[in-house]
């Protein structure tokens, strides 16, 4: 069964901490994405990557960075966590030029206190 795995389901961090969210996919997909999901706002794209070491900003990149050193792994970094970054974070992947829709991970619910 193909899978996108996010390392943590729930995280609680303090304001100012550096936070790492990890995502691994086993489908040899080129494209990987990080979204955040907030009630009433839907999914908003933070960053995406279409190849190893390549990254592109999405709609809301401020306060975040990403790393893709290997094809299967895409990491989201909150440089200095703030309370307004409390959210559900979703990782997704898709094969280049595929239109079968994204495969999503189960999400990480991050609370910043």
């Amino acid at each position: 069964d193909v899978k996108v795995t996010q390392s943590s389901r729930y995280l609680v961090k303090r304001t100012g901490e550096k936070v790492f969210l990890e995502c691994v996919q086993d489908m040899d997909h080129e494209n990987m994405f990080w979204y955040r999901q907030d009630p009433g706002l839907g999914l908003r794209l933070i960053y995406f990557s279409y190849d190893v070491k390549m990254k592109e900003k999405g709609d809301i990149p401020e306060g975040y960075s990403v790393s893709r050193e290997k094809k299967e792994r895409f990491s989201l970094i909150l440089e200095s966590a703030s309370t307004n970054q409390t959210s559900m974070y979703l990782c997704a992947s898709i094969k280049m030029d595929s239109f079968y829709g994204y495969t999503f991970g189960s999400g990480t619910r991050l609370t910043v206190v």
Partner: protein
Amino acid sequence: EDQVTQSPEALRLQEGESSSLNCSYTVSGLRGLFWYRQDPGKGPEFLFTLYSAGEEKEKERLKATLTKKESFLHITAPKPEDSATYLCAVQGSGGFKTIFGAGTRLFVKA
């Protein structure tokens, strides 16, 4: 600017009571419109891709249709296990970005 609006925000149905969810969109050069199902505490699960006006796709009790401005997700004789949030998304000709709507929360009561 590409945009997706879903209505209603929430829908409560009795088991067996058929209905439709709406997704209105504006996009430059539609490459694909997607429907996903999301259960509480989980990531969205892909259901359908529609490419052009007039196209229809079916899966069990769900049927998705597409016009030039909107898509409908028809639910025929729903069951409690159909309760979930249904997300609509579009991808335009501009590239990788997929724009998601806020979703419709569906509750089906036995």
